[in-house]
């Protein structure tokens, strides 16, 4: 029996392409966020609210990832921002190569902020670096307050948490204080926002934070 000892990260190829994407975005001076959540938490609505606030002061471009359809790209294109839809045809997450191909289709010289909306899934997208500056995880109050404990890998890798659908709090069993505690337990550095995309509550705080990151990039 002979042994070959290697230490190779399984996702090395993805990480190399992600590093390449990161370098490319850096050269264009673009701040990039990877927006993740379970399906239906409100990523696209949050993105629409964000576009309402930031455009045109901040030049935003968008990459949409979905298993099927370009419905999200259609929604985003109403805000007159460049958008590329990636359809994964069944795959549960975006990979760096898909983002690289999408970057080729965007006028990067005219962007300050790139938002990548990942496939709705709190598990798989955690493992795949896309080249973003930060991950932002969205949870909705209807999902309960235990999500951070159930999906720690994702919350651990995120820089910010947006708790969405706060307008529904009177009707659901979700304790915001408990949700915050659970989130900080997994990731003590997590920045936490509370929003209702329906009423607009909290959107300005989130956008102010994001705008500051874009300015300091």
């Amino acid at each position, binding site marked *: *029996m002979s*042994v070959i000892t290697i230490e190779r990260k399984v*996702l090395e190829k993805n990480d190399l392409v992600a590093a390449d994407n990161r370098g490319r975005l850096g050269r264009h001076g673009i701040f990039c966020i990877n927006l993740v959540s379970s399906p239906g938490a409100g990523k696209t609505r949050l993105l629409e609210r964000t576009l309402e606030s930031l455009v045109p002061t901040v030049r935003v471009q968008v990459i949409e990832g979905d298993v099927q359809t370009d419905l999200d790209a259609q929604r985003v294109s109403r805000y007159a921002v460049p958008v590329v839809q990636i359809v994964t045809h069944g795959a*549960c997450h975006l990979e760096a190569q898909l983002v690289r191909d999408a970057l080729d289709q965007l006028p990067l010289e005219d962007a300050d902020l790139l938002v990548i909306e990942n496939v709705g899934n709190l*598990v*798989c997208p955690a493992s795949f670096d896309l080249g973003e500056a930060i991950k932002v995880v969205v949870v909705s109050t209807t999902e309960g307050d235990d999500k951070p404990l159930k999906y720690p890998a994702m919350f651990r890798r995120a820089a910010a948490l947006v708790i969405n659908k706060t307008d529904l709090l009177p009707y659901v069993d979700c304790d915001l204080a408990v949700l915050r505690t659970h989130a900080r*337990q*997994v990731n003590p550095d997590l920045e936490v926002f509370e929003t209702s995309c329906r009423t607009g509550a909290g959107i300005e705080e989130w956008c102010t934070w994001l705008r500051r990151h874009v300015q300091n990039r």
Partner: protein
Amino acid sequence: MHELGIAQSILEIAREHVPSEDVGRVALIRVRLGPLCGVVGDSLAFCFEALVSDSPFPGARLVIEAVPLVGRCLDCNRTVESTEWIPSCPHCLAGRLQIERGDDLSVSQIELSDPPAEAS
């Protein structure tokens, strides 16, 4: 369910590290998995089984080594080690953890069976 792609990557990495003449001797591939890597060991083993029969080394087995999560409690300052994800410090039962390691997802070793004895 991204374990299929992960299993494929493991086979590709193994292929890159084994000289062509030794491909038929690959007996075992060792991988390291941390509790926070986002990959489920059982699913990975299942996907590996599904792919390995059509790989250059159909007889290879996958051995998954679970490596522990290592961290420090921000409240009692003690070091924490666990092979499973834990949400809070097991010493003081309350503290928040600063996790330093636990994302491991790597191929560590490939074992080759002995070549057939030369005919004398």
